[in-house]
């Protein structure tokens, strides 16, 4: 029954503990409303046919409904509405406070990315790692405009408001991956604010917490690759030459890049670093100025590692020294001057 209704209504999977009860309330209201609509519709249709205009029957009787009938309708509806209010509000209050000890994750939203800091562990951009079977409390804020943290599979949504902290909690039922969407309009990149919840089993989660601290050694480019994944760069940039939301990194280093203002620059270390810290300073032609600034987010070694990583991604031809401009001017979008990088 649950499964049938869920599929019928095209609801996503029920990956959190609150999803099941919430969906059941949804089904109840859905069925009640449809029943009423059906009765009402049938009555209307019946009247339409039964009392259609026929010649010779012009004057209609005076007809008013008895007061008790009106009162019954109103009273019945009112009772039903109040019931829904009570049920819905009780569940809503349940969404506010986590049951018992919760893992805390600080969520910072900004145009257009999510940053997660586990209270007991490391932080990352775009990927939130949490354990299954334990309540997780999110403490949200925003660095610029209002965003909204939405995980359809969990049925939770909470605005992240600048200057304030809001909270929400969930308990994932099983290990798995779930998409995070931004549900409050926040500008050009609103539909491209990628994020993912990675739910690990309790043991894996502990290992992840412990493991984070020891890895990160090895050669700089490999470290850069890890940073790129963690910070969400790869949500917009590819390493295989295809176009993402941003330009690909393949063959980027050393190439000549055309910018929206018509000028060209050579992609050297300084340019790459500036692109991360002040992306709006030089915007690649054909791309919207949507890349967030990482000033204050990337540590110096991370920046260095990223540059090293980008340098390492080159095709054979480029290695041989042949100049190959990567940023091809595509259909150009209107350039907006003074676009704020979103960083204060």
């Amino acid at each position, binding site marked *: 029954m649950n499964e049938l209704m869920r599929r019928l209504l095209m609801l996503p999977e029920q990956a959190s503990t609150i999803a099941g009860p919430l969906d059941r309330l949804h089904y109840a209201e859905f069925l009640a409303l449809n029943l009423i609509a059906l009765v009402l519709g049938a009555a209307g249709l019946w009247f339409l046919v039964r009392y259609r205009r026929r010649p010779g029957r012009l004057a209609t009787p005076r007809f008013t409904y008895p007061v008790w009938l009106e009162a019954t309708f109103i009273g019945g509806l009112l009772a039903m509405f109040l019931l829904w209010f009570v*049920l819905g509000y009780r569940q809503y209050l349940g969404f506010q406070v986590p049951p018992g000890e919760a893992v805390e994750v600080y969520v910072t939203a900004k145009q257009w990315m999510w940053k997660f800091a586990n209270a007991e562990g490391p932080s990352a951009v775009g990927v939130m790692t949490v354990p299954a079977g334990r309540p997780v409390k999110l403490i949200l804020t925003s660095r610029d405009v209002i965003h909204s943290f939405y995980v359809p599979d969990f049925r939770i949504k909470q605005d992240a408001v600048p200057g304030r902290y809001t909270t929400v909690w969930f308990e994932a039922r099983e290990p798995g991956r779930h998409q995070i969407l931004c549900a409050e309009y926040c500008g050009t990149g609103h539909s491209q604010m990628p994020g993912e919840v990675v739910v690990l089993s309790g043991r894996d989660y502990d290992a992840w917490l412990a493991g984070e601290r020891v890895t990160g050694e090895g050669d700089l480019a490999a470290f850069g690759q890890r940073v790129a994944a963690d910070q969400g760069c790869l949500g917009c940039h590819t390493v295989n030459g295809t176009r993402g939301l941003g330009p690909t990194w393949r063959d980027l280093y050393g190439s000549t890049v055309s910018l929206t203002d018509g000028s060209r620059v050579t992609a050297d270390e300084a340019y790459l670093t500036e692109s991360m810290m002040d992306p709006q300073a030089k915007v690649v032609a054909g791309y919207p100025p949507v890349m967030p600034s990482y000033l204050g987010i990337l540590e110096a070694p991370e920046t260095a590692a990223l540059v090293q990583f980008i340098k390492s991604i080159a095709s054979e031809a480029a290695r041989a020294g042949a100049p190959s401009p990567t940023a091809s001017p595509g259909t150009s979008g209107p350039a907006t001057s003074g676009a704020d990088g979103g960083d204060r």
Partner: protein
Amino acid sequence: MSAEPDYLHATRGLGSWLTTTDHKRIGILFLWTVSAALLLGGVFAILLRLELLTPGRTFVDPMTYNRFFTLHGVIMVWMFMIPSIPTSFGNFMLPIMLGAKDVAFPRLNLASWYVYLAGAAIVLTGMVLGGTDTGWTFYTPYSSKTPADVAPVVLGVFVLGVSTIITGINFIVTTHTLRARGMTWHRMPLFVWSIYATSVIQVLATPVLGMALVLVALDHALALGVFDPAAGGDPILYQHVFWFYSHPAVYIMVLPAFAVISETVCALSHKNPASYRAIAYSSVGIAFVGFLTWGHHMFVSGMSALDVGVFSVLSMLVAIFSAIKVFAWVGTMYRGSIAFRTPMAYVIAFLVLFGVGGMTGVAVATAALDVHWHDTYFIVAHFHFIMVGGTITAFLAGLHYWFPKMFGRLYPERWGLLAAALVFGGFLLTFIPQFLLGNAGMPRRYYEYPERYQALHVLSTGGSWLIGVGLAVTVVYLVWALRYGPPSGDNPWGSKGFEWLAPSPPPPHNFHETPVITHGPHEYFRPEA
């Protein structure tokens, strides 16, 4: 019978129209401008549906898309929907229904049209200059940080609001002071009750929007920071102020639709309304309780949980009034003599679509459920069911029902029914998939979307084209009928609504003899009245 020319022919020339103070002519002027706004807003709708055909880029970039839906919302809400029925049919019918010769302040009435034009011109200038990209809600702090121009559109909306207030004052005073002899409050047509309630909301709510817009403009232009957290401001308070207007505003949009449906359902069923008082009083009830529910747009905004509870239960209460009306309209058909003509077809469409839209409204007013639905396509579907399925449908019902009254001609019935079927079918195809999209978690105001949602989006886009065709057909045959429609006679529907006491089209001062009212409207059970 004097051979006095009707209001359309009393004077001639464009100048006589542009300087007229005749409420009927002003109504016609508004009808044209408002229809043009619908067309423009519809063009944006078609464009944004087109972009949503594919998950990635279809034909515009994200910034353009964001401007599309903002302008679509702004134009539809403030240039079409809010003025639509009150300024056109309201202006035309309200004084006649009251047995008056004109509204209380005719010159103010004309001024309202010019103010509307000025506001519309400013909005359109803003549009040409690039438009804004904040969404029709202008939420801060985004609206104070966006690189797009905010001021022209905001200013235009402010001016449109002034026009709304002027019309509202005029209608309130007219209803109080210009009722014909014998026209007691309980003999007023249901149309008048609804428009009166609408005017009350217009007058009380619109100034608050005005102030909210001024603050947005100041925050954007001067970085004043009333809502800027860095300067101690609270963005949530902007939402309170905005919705304090904008929830009542949705009743500004739908009460006039109730007004039209109350008249048409009686006239085409040839029956007295089931429970006149219930329909009349519930309009007033909506006008007041409707002011107390604004917070239901803010359930996940970080508003206090106490306010969530208060606004949730009050939203449930306000829905009762609409439910009463729906039952009363269906009940009116019972034992009537129903003519299934175009207006009636639209009445049926209205009952179905508004019923579904309103019921989903009650569902989203359930606080816990709204957490999943908020800012998804479920909400988009909810409000289009009410605004398109409800108000536009009622607008079309009124347009057909009063076409003979306004122009003295008949529209082609078969074409009317065909177009109604197209609009209705297209509507269902456009917006039912959007409910499912919302359930599946598709957020609104998304330029790009995950591929799993594409099938439903394609259906929706197809539906929007059907609506477009249906409306285009309507425009064509109505314009045709203006010239070539057969003369209708004074009362082609055999209606007992009071507006039909005057000739069709009416003479400049509406009546050859001022009527004296001895009974309520739509009393078809009287042999002769």
